[in-house]
C-alpha cells in the first residue's frame, strides 16, 4: 500500500478506464482504496459507472470535453474585485452616519423654521426693494443704528438696504430656512443675486456680536450660517428652493390646521408699515409706519386665502391679535393661539393691519400666493427692557444711547426661559442705584457662559455710570439661568436698559 496513492487526483479518464475494466487489478485496487477514504472520489466513480452503463461511454465523455474547453474561456474572465471588504464596510458606515447626521440636522432645522418664519419675505425683491430702500433711506427713525457699523448691523435696522443683502443672508441665518422660500422664483433670483456680495461680509459679521438674528431661532441660525457659507449665490437659490419646499410643505400643513381656528371679525384701521423684508428677522424697531412690509412667499398657488402668522419681535407667536383689512372693513379676525390667521382675498397682495395691545397697529402687505406670511411685529409702544438693543426709535426712550449693537444679536447661548422672560425679569427687577441720580440709558454687559450655565468674565462694554453698571451686572448674575446654544462656552452680550 503506497501512501503516494492518496496524493493522486484521479481524473475522469482514470475512472472511465476503471469502469471499463481497462485498469490492472493493482491499479484498480489502488483506486478502490483511495475511494474508500475519499467520498468525493467514491461518488465520482459511482456516477461514472452508472452513467456509462446507462448511456454509454461516448455520451458520458463528450460533455466532459465541452466542460474543459468552457473552462478555458472562463480563464479570460475579468478579475473580480472582492477584497477591501473591511474598508468598504467602514466607508459605508461613515457615509451612513454622515447621511443620518445631515438628515437629523435638516429635520431639526426644518421644524424650527416652520415654527418661526413661515415664509421668507424675501422681499418684494427687485421692484419693491429699491422703493423701500428709498423709503427707508428717508426714514429718520431707524437712523440711529444705521449710521453705525457694518452692513450687518444695518441690516437689522432695515436701513440702507444696500446692506440688506447682508440682511438677507442673515435672515436666512435666522434660520428661516422655510422662509427661504424662494418666492416665485424670480424674486428669489434677484435676491440671490444681491446676496453674492453680502454673504461674504455677512458671514464675517455673523461672527461678531454684531451679527443680527433672532434668539429664538438661534439654533437655526447656527445651522444656517454654515450653510450659507457654503452656498455660493447660485447654490443659495437652489438650496433655498429645496428648503422652502420643505418649509412650505410643513407650513401648509399648519395652515390647514389653523384653518379651523377662524374667529369672528372686527374692524380696525390700518396704517402702513413698511420695512424691508430682509430684515424681518431683525427686531427692527422703530418701524414707524414708514415701511411697507411685504411678505414674499415662494409658492405661486393662489388659494383665495391670505394666510399669515403674527409674531412678536422675538418670533414668539401672538395670539388674539386683531387682523383687519384696510381696504375691506368686513374682515376682522383674531389670530389663533399660535398666531395664525387667514383672510379671504383674491388679490395677489393684500394689506392688513395688525392690532395688539402693546404693539399698537402695524401694517403689513401680504402676498396671496404665499403659503404663509409672517408678520413680525415691532414693539411699537412697549417699553420693553431690551435685552438686545438697538435704540427704539418709536419709543422716544433714550435713543441717546447710541450703541453700535444691533437690536438682536446672534448669540451662542440664551436664557433658559427665553429672551422674553429674561426681558421681563430685567424690567421687573432692575433698580436704580440708591443715592444716585436717575439715569436712563443702556448698559451693555458681556459675559461668558460655560457648559454648566455658569456666568463669568463680566465686562462692561458700554457704561452708563458706575452704579448702573454694577446694577446691570448684579441683575444678570442673579438672573435667570442661561443655556448654551452652540459650542462649549459662549460669550454673551446683554443690553440692560434703564
Amino acid at each position, binding site marked *: 500500500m503506497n501512501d503516494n496513492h492518496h496524493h493522486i487526483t484521479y481524473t475522469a479518464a482514470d*475512472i472511465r478506464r476503471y469502469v471499463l475494466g481497462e485498469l490492472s487489478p493493482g*491499479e484498480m485496487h489502488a483506486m478502490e482504496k483511495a475511494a474508500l477514504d475519499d467520498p468525493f472520489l467514491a461518488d465520482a466513480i459511482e456516477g461514472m459507472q452508472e452513467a456509462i452503463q446507462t448511456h454509454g461511454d461516448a455520451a458520458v465523455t463528450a460533455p466532459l470535453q465541452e466542460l474543459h474547453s468552457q473552462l478555458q474561456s472562463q480563464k479570460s474572465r475579468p478579475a473580480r474585485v472582492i477584497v477591501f471588504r473591511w474598508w468598504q464596510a467602514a466607508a459605508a458606515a461613515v457615509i451612513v452616519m454622515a447621511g443620518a447626521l445631515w438628515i437629523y440636522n435638516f429635520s431639526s432645522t426644518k421644524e424650527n423654521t416652520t415654527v418661526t418664519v413661515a415664509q421668507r419675505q424675501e422681499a418684494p425683491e427687485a421692484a419693491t426693494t429699491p422703493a423701500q430702500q428709498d423709503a427707508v433711506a428717508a426714514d429718520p427713525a431707524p437712523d440711529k443704528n444705521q449710521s453705525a457699523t457694518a452692513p450687518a448691523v444695518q441690516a437689522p435696522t432695515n436701513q440702507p438696504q444696500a446692506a440688506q443683502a447682508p440682511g438677507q443672508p442673515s435672515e436666512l441665518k435666522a434660520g428661516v430656512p422655510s422662509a427661504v422660500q424662494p418666492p416665485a422664483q424670480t424674486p428669489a433670483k434677484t435676491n440671490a443675486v444681491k446676496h453674492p456680495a453680502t454673504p461674504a461680509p455677512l458671514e464675517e459679521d455673523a461672527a461678531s456680536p454684531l451679527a443680527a438674528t433672532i434668539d429664538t431661532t438661534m439654533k437655526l441660525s447656527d445651522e444656517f450660517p454654515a450653510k450659507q457659507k457654503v452656498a455660493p449665490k447660485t447654490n443659495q437659490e437652489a438650496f433655498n428652493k429645496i428648503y422652502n419646499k420643505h418649509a412650505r410643505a410643513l407650513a401648509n400643513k399648519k395652515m390647514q390646521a389653523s384653518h379651523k381656528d377662524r374667529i369672528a371679525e372686527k374692524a380696525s384701521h390700518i396704517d402702513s408699515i413698511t420695512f424691508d423684508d430682509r430684515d424681518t428677522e431683525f427686531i427692527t424697531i422703530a418701524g414707524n409706519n414708514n415701511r411697507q412690509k411685504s411678505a414674499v412667499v415662494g409658492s405661486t398657488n393662489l388659494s383665495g386665502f391670505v394666510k399669515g402668522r403674527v409674531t412678536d419681535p422675538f418670533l414668539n407667536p401672538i395670539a388674539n391679535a386683531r387682523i383687519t383689512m384696510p381696504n375691506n372693513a368686513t374682515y376682522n379676525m383674531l389670530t389663533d393661539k399660535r398666531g395664525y390667521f387667514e383672510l379671504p382675498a383674491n388679490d395677489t397682495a393684500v394689506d392688513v393691519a395688525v392690532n395688539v395691545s402693546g404693539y399698537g397697529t402695524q401694517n403689513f402687505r401680504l402676498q396671496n400666493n404665499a403659503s404663509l406670511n409672517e408678520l413680525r411685529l415691532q414693539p411699537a409702544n412697549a417699553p420693553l427692557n431690551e435685552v438686545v438693543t438697538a435704540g427704539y426709535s418709536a419709543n422716544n426712550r433714550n435713543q441717546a444711547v447710541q450703541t453700535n449693537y444691533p437690536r438682536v444679536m446672534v448669540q451662542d447661548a440664551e436664557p433658559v426661559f427665553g429672551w422674553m422672560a429674561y426681558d421681563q425679569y430685567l424690567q421687573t427687577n432692575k433698580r436704580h442705584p440708591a443715592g444716585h441720580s436717575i439715569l436712563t440709558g443702556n448698559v451693555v454687559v458681556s459675559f461668558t457662559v460655560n457648559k454648566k450655565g455658569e456666568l463669568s468674565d463680566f465686562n462692561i462694554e458700554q457704561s452708563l455710570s458706575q452704579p448702573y453698571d454694577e446694577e446691570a451686572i448684579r441683575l444678570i448674575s442673579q438672573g435667570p439661568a442661561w443655556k448654551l446654544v452652540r459650542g462649549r462656552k459662549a460669550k454673551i452680550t446683554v443690553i440692560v436698559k434703564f
Partner: protein
Amino acid sequence: MAFLKNISHNGLSDKELAHRYRTTGNMEVLAVLFQRYMDLLYGVCLKYLKQPETAKDAVMQIFEELVQKLPKHEVDNFKSWLYTLAKNHCLMQLRTPQNLKTVEFKTESMQSVEDVHLNGVLTREENLQKMEHCLQTLSDEQRITIELFYLQNKCYKEIAEATGLEWNKVRSHIQNGRRNLKICMEKHNIPVAITGR
C-alpha cells in the same frame, strides 16, 4: 505566457490557490483550481443527476457558485468543501417534484461515508496483535474481503471472483468491516486515524 502561468499555478496547493483567488479575484487562478476537481465533480453530478448533459450544466453552475462563494468563505479543505457544495447543489436540483420517486433501499448497495482510514493502523506493527483479534470478531465475509483487500491488495473485482460474492457486496463488506474494526480497536483504546477527504 499563459502556458507558463499555468505551470506555476499547478505547483500551488489548493489552499494557496484559493487564497490567491480571494485576494486578487483573478479568474484564471480559480479556473486552475477548479480544473483539478472538475472531473470528479462531473462524476458526482452524474451520480445524482443521472444525465450527462444535466451533469455538465450542473458543473458549470457549481463553478459560478464557486465564483461567488469562495471569496466569502475561508476554506480550509477546499476539496471537501467543494464536494459538499456539489452535493448540495445536486440535491437542491433534485428537489423538484417530478424528481421525487421512491427507490428501494438496498442496504448492501449503500456505500457508507467512511472517515476511517485504517491503512495506517493496519501497518502498525504494534497494533497487529489487536488487529488480529479484532479481525476475528468480524463476520466471515467481512473478514475475508478485508484481508483480501488490505493484506493482499486485491481489487474488488478480484475479490468478487475469488469469493463469488457480488461486486457491490464485496464493497459494502469491506466498508462495514472497516467500521467494525475501527470500533473494535477503539474499544481497546487504540486511536484509529481518521481521514476525511
